[in-house]
C-alpha cells in the first residue's frame, strides 16, 4: 500500500503536542511514530520536541574531533616550520619554543572546533536540504506543522485526531 504525506497546521504548541501524544498512543499499523512524524515550527522549543520521543543529538562530537585534529596539525606544522630556521636563533630563545607554539595551536583549536560544529550541523540536520513534500511557509511564520507519512488507509483516522485537537488547516499529498 502506498504511503502518503499529510501536513496539519496548528495554532499552538499545546494543541499540536496533544495531537502527537494521541497519535503515539493510537499505534496505527505501518505508522512508526519515531520516524514518520516531523514537527515544523517557527521557533525552537526543546521541551515540546520531547513528545516525539528520544531524539539524540550528535553534533557535539564533531567539534571535539575538529579541535583536536586542527590543533595537533598546527602544532606539528609550526614546530616543523621553525625547525627550518636551523641555525638562526631568535632572541636567545630555543628554535622550537613550546609555550609560544601553544598560542597559534590554541587559535587553531578554536577554528577546528567551529568549522566542525558547522559541518556537524549540516551533516546531522541534513542541510542543505531539499524541501520535503507539503511545505508551507507558515511553519516558519506563526504556525506549528505536524507532517506525518502513513498508509493511505490510516490517513483519515490520523486526520480525525488532528481535527479533534483543533488543527486549523490540512495539506494532503495528491495521490498518484
Amino acid at each position, binding site marked *: 500500500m502506498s504511503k502518503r504525506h499529510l501536513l496539519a497546521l496548528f495554532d499552538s504548541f499545546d494543541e499540536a503536542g496533544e495531537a502527537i501524544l494521541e497519535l503515539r498512543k493510537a499505534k496505527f499499523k505501518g505508522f512508526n511514530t519515531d520516524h514518520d512524524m516531523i514537527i515544523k515550527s517557527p521557533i525552537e522549543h526543546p521541551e515540546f520536541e520531547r513528545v516525539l520521543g528520544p531524539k539524540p543529538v550528535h553534533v557535539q562530537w564533531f567539534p571535539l574531533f575538529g579541535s583536536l585534529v586542527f590543533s595537533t596539525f598546527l602544532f*606539528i606544522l609550526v*614546530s*616543523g*616550520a*621553525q*625547525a627550518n*630556521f*636551523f*641555525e*638562526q*636563533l*631568535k*632572541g*636567545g*630563545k*630555543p*628554535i*622550537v619554543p613550546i609555550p609560544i607554539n601553544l598560542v597559534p595551536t590554541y587559535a587553531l583549536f578554536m577554528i577546528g572546533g567551529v568549522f566542525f560544529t558547522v559541518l556537524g550541523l549540516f551533516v546531522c540536520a541534513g542541510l542543505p536540504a531539499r524541501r520535503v513534500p507539503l511545505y508551507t511557509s507558515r511553519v516558519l511564520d506563526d504556525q506549528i506543522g505536524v507532517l506525518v507519512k502513513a498508509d493511505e488507509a490510516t490517513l483519515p483516522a490520523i486526520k480525525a485526531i488532528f481535527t479533534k485537537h483543533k488543527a486549523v488547516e490540512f495539506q494532503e499529498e495528491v495521490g498518484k
Partner: protein
Amino acid sequence: MSIANLLQNWSRYRDTHPYGGAKPHMGYKWAMAIDMDICTGCNACTVACYAENNLAVVGKEKFLNGKSMHWIRIERYWHDEQDPTDPLQLAAYRASGAGKHFPDQGAHFLPIMCQHCEAAPCETVCPVGATNHTQDGINSQIYNRCVGSRYCNVNCPYKVRYFNWFNYQDPATENAWPEPLNQQLNPDVTVRSKGVMEKCTFCVQRLRAVMVDARTEERLVREGEVQTACQQACLAGAISFGNMLNPDSRVGKQWMEQGVNIALDVQVKNERVGDNTPKRGYRILENLRPYPSVMYLEQVRESAV
C-alpha cells in the same frame, strides 16, 4: 620528514643564548668595545658609516623630525646642570636646531649603534623572521624579507633601528641621491627600499668577504684582517672590533680584562680587583638582559656621581 627531523635534532632545537645549553658560536663571535674615555666625539665614525653603508642623507628637516638614518650616532651628554634625561630640556635642545644651547666644555660622547644582542628583543617580535641571530653572533637584518611592521624598533631598548620612511632608492623621487652623487654608493651594499627597517650590520659585507677568503684557505679570520668602517675611521682608536673567540683579538682581551661576561647582566664595574685598577667595562641597559655584544669603557668620575 619534518617530524623525524624534529625528533632527531631535538636537543639542538632547544639551545638558547647566551646561557643555559648555549649553542657555541661556530668559530666566530663578532664583538665590539668602545672606549668612551678616548672618544673625542668627532663624528668621523658616523661619516664613515654613511659612506660605507649607503645611508640615506635625509636633510635637516627630516632629521629634526626624527627620520634620520644614522646607523651609528654620537650622543652628547653634559654633566653639571645639564640633565639629558630631562625630557623638557631635551625637547628644548631638539627644538632649538643648530643654535648654541650647550656649554663649551664637560661633554661626554656615546657612539651607539646596533648592539647585536645575544638575546635580541627585536628578533622575537619580527612577524616574518627578517631579523635573526647568525652563527657568527651578529643580529642580521634581511631587507627583502622585511614587511615594515616596525615592531623590532618598538622592542629595541636602544632605538637603534631606522626605518625607510620615504623612497631613498628610486632616482625618480626627490629623496634619492641626486646625480652624480649616486655614483659614490658602495656597490657591496644594497640601497634599501621604501618601507623596510635597517640598522648597523657590523659591516657584514666586509666580514663576509674575509670569512669567505679564510674559509678557502681553511683557517679562521685573523685579528686585524677586517675592520668596520667606524673602527677604521676612528682617529683615536676608541673602537675595537673583532672575533671574540680568537685569543689574539684585542676586543676579546679587553672584554676579559674588564671582566665583562657576555652571559651576565651585572658586571663588576668599578670594583678594584687584582691589579687595583678599576674596571671600566659595562654594557648599556644590561638589566633588561638583551646581552649586547658591544662593551663600553668609561671610568665613573667623581663629578658624575
